[in-house]
Every structure is written in C-alpha cells, then in structure tokens.
C-alpha cells in the first residue's frame, strides 16, 4: 500500500537544462502513450522525480508492513491469521518489485534503504500512526489499502515502463487486500457490542490520517503541470481524495458506522463531497518526523538492517558485479 501526495522535491527540480530536441521527442512519445524504458533518453528531472517517487513507494511498503506485522501473531482464528500473513507478505513483495523498478533508474537498493534509515527519504505518513487494536488492522486493511489503490491505479497509467508494470501487479494483489480488510470490517460491524465499539473507535482514529493520505491540496505549480505532462503524476491530490470519499463514505455509513466529520456531505447537483479540512499543520509536523511513531518505525527498521547485515555481507563475493535488475 502507499500514501499518495509524494513528499517534497518538486521545488528542487532544475528546469530545462535538457537538449531541447531530445526533450521534444520524449514529450511526443509520452503524449502518444508510449512507455519510457530504462535505457531510453529521459530528462534529468524525470529521472530524479521518478526515483524519489518509486523509492518512497517502496519504503512505504516496508514500513507499512510494521503496523500490521505486529498483529500477525495476535490475529484471531486461522482464517484471519493466514490472511494477514499473506497480506503483509505481499507488501514486502511489493517493496521488492518497487526497489527493482527504482534501481533501473540508477540508485541501488542499498542506497535507498540507507536513505530511509538515515531519514533522507520519506515514506507515507499514514504509517506513523499506531494500530492499537485488532479493529485498527481491519480499518487499515480496508481503508488505507482502499486509498492506496486509488493512488496506485492512477499511477499505473503513468509513463515509466518498469514502474507501470510493477504497479499493475501490485494493484491486482491490493484488490485482494481490500477484500480481506472489508471482510474483517464487516465481521466486526455485524458482531458483538464490543466488536462494534472497537471498530468505531478505530475508524475515529484513522479518519484524519486517511484525509491526509493524498497530501495537501494541489497548487497547480509549473512543476506539477510538467510532471502531469510527463505522466509522472497522474491525478491531483484533491481529485484522488474526492474519489476515495465518494467510494468509501457511503459504504462506511451503510454499515451503521459514523465518521468524525459533521461537514461530510455529498452535493447532489455536482456529486462532489464537502468535508472538513483536516489539520494540515499536523500533517507537516508528522512529515518532519514528529508524528506519534516516526522514531519507533525507523528504529525498528534500523535494528532490522543492523541485525541482518552479517547475512548480506556473507552473500557478497569479491568477484561480484552490481547488476541492475530486470523490471
């Protein structure tokens, strides 16, 4: 799964230092719906932005495995235990696919993981919140994965071949995650009083992070326009948020659950949803590393990297050469 509204970077883009003829050909190919492949010419900004984006996506899968991973050992009953194991395993598999896709652009997996644990690269903010109860796992599985699908389906129509191919496979698996999350939510929503309360409380906790999920409202900067023209960014944050709300809010209400936003309302004329603006100061605080669990998430990842270092070092052979994976 992945949080959209990838973070930072646009302001650092260098505009137009590329060969204008190559650039025109490149843009014509994209406009014609061609996919760009690793060995093709591409503008420096395109490469830079894609590395950043795919890398953040990969990190989000790795860090995203942590809040749910700790519930594998507590999942109630065989069905849930097996489903959650398979689901979190998929997330790690997505990370593997995505690191490979990003490597085709010239950054090694090791360099990416180092940047993750030293705080240089970001991952989706949504994973900096705790999963207190089993119901949080249900809400994550349904709604965080649901939000991720909105973002990933959009990106799977993008222009970079390796990323698009990885995303097609990821979306296919995510659609099963969504089903297991929904099934889990339905059992809690139609269960005992204790189960319903647990679910409602989890939903209240996750609503604001979900509204933050797609990132702040887009200012249509020059860069955003360029990234959309290059099919790196495929949908605006606001459009994706609207799409998510219109897909899921009716389903949530149908289950007799409530959402902690009194302004949530669909305009019958435009079909657009009104909602309370979430606290964006909080969003930026969490990005800066001041969310409830930023430090813990990175500490767990750092420990895992340190504990596993001897294994990776043992696999290195003196005559080995770095090879870029196929993707």
């Amino acid at each position, binding site marked *: 799964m992945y949080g959209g509204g990838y973070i930072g970077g646009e302001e650092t883009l260098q505009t137009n230092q590329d060969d204008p003829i190559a650039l025109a050909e490149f843009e014509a190919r994209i406009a014609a719906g061609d996919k760009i492949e690793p060995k093709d010419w591409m503008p420096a900004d395109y490469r830079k932005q894609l590395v950043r984006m795919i890398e953040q996506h990969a990190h989000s899968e790795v860090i995203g495995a942590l809040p749910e991973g700790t519930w*594998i050992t507590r999942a109630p009953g065989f069905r849930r235990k097996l489903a959650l194991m398979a689901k979190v395993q998929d997330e790690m598999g997505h990370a593997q696919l995505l690191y490979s896709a990003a490597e085709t652009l010239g950054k090694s997996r090791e360099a990416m993981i180092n940047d993750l644990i030293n705080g240089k690269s970001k991952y989706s903010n949504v994973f900096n919140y705790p999963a207190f109860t089993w119901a949080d796992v249900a809400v994550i599985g349904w709604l965080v994965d649901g939000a991720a699908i909105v973002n990933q389906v959009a990106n799977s129509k993008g222009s970079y071949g390796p990323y698009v191919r990885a995303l097609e496979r990821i979306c296919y698996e995510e659609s099963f995650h969504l089903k297991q999350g929904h099934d889990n939510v339905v059992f809690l929503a139609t269960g005992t009083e204790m189960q319903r309360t647990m679910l409602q409380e989890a939903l209240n906790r996750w609503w604001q992070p979900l509204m933050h999920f797609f990132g702040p409202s887009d200012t249509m900067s020059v860069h955003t326009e360029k990234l959309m023209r290059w099919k790196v960014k495929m949908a605006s944050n606001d459009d994706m948020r609207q799409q998510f709300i219109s897909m899921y809010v009716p389903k949530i209400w149908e289950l007799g659950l409530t959402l902690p936003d009194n302004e949530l309302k669909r305009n019958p004329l435009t079909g657009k949803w009104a909602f309370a603006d979430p606290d964006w100061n909080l969003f930026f605080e969490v990005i800066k590393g001041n969310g409830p669990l930023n430090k813990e998430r990175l500490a767990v990842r750092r420990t895992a990297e340190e504990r596993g270092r001897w294994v990776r070092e043992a696999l290195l052979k003196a005559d080995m050469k770095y090879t870029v994976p196929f993707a």
Partner: protein
Amino acid sequence: MQDNIKQPLQQFMLQLADNLLVMGHRNSEWTGIGPIIEEDIAFASIAQDQVGQAWNLYQLLESNFGFAHPDQVAFTRNEKEFYSSHLVEQPTGEYDFSLARHYFYDLAQLLRYEMLSHSSYEPLAKLAKKFHGEVKYHVFHAQTWMKQLMDGNEVSKARMQSAVNEVFPFALGAFESVEGEEVLIAEGIFEGESTLKDAWMQQVGAQLLEWGYSLPQLAQPVLGGGKGYHSEFLQPLLDEMGEVFRLDPSAEW
C-alpha cells in the same frame, strides 16, 4: 476405531498440529524485519504452509475425533494442554538460529510426511502427501541458505556453526513419542519417532559434513513438550496468539 488405537492416533495428530502451529507462528515473526526482503517473503511463505497444515490437522481432529472447532482448540488452550516441542517454542532469535531450526525442523517434517504418506490411516496419508509437496520447498530453501552461509565469510561460518550447535539438542527433542506409539507402529499408522530420528540423523550428518559444518556433539535431547512440560517461552506465545480471540471466544472474528 478401537479406543486403544484412537487414543494414541489423536494424540499423535494433536502433537503434530501443535508443533506446526507454534513453528509457523514463530516463523511469521520475521515478516517485515528479515535480513533481506527476499527472506521476509520466504519465511512468511513457510509460516503460511505450517499454520495451514496445522489447521488441516485440527479440522481432521474435529471431523473424525470429536474435537472442538479448530479456532477453539488452537487459540484457547494453555501450555499444560499444548504438546509442541521445545524446539519450536524457542524465540525467533537471530537469523542464524531461525535458519538452523528451520533446516532441522523441516527436514524432519519431510521425512515424517514421507512415512505418513504410506500410513494405514487414510485421511492422514492423504494430508501427508499434500504437505510433503509443500515441505520439499522448505527443505530446498533451508539447504540453500545453510550451504551459502557456510560458504560466506568467517563471521557467517562461525555464526552458523554455533547456531547448529545451539539448536541441535532441541532438534533431538522434537522426536518425542506419544503414549501407545507401539500400537500405531503395529497398525501401520506411523513407523515411530525412533525410526524417523535415525533416518533424519543420517541425512543431517551427511549434509552438514558436505557443507563444511562440524557435527554437533550428541547432546541430551530437550524433551517434555509432548507431555505438556514447556520452557518459559510457550505461555507468553499462547497469550499473544489468543489475545484477540479470547476477548470473546464465542464471537465471530
């Protein structure tokens, strides 16, 4: 089925299932924190097979032996009524420990299922054939890593050798006979833990030497799990596993 067969047979299957469940639970703990992503994925696959096999066995105990629902059996019992070995309940530890345990355990499972696929108790033979197809890949995975870390550097060699030495007494203790095993042997249901252990020792010995390990000293097997005597590690594991289910065991989760 006569009681003198039924009793040891159901105990044998329960012990097998308990071992699988606890082993799968432990292996699943690597998901998200493995040394490389590929190993998170591999351990998660193995864990799913093991928990799935345990589930199948509890289902057989429910349908043919009158046991409670598999979720009740697995998620509500405490350590005294759990028959898993000390091998599987040991904490995950570092990757070297987990890998050595995985190798010893899954090689034993492969041989066990080979034997059981000829069992005169048809439903068990059928399951064993299915499980055997899964465990083949577990063993292949374990052997690949046991070998390549012994081929690695000085650190990995030393770590793997000491992990093998550390796990070995626990592995020996995972061949614990159920009461009345002689009836299972006489009835052609199972050839017995001692025969299984001999076959396992032969393979373990040959393979470890081939990969450059020293054979661990024959140690006193750590027994007791099959009789409900456990280390301090099992009850906390069971508390964690049942934490949500036990909030309301009559609820549907």
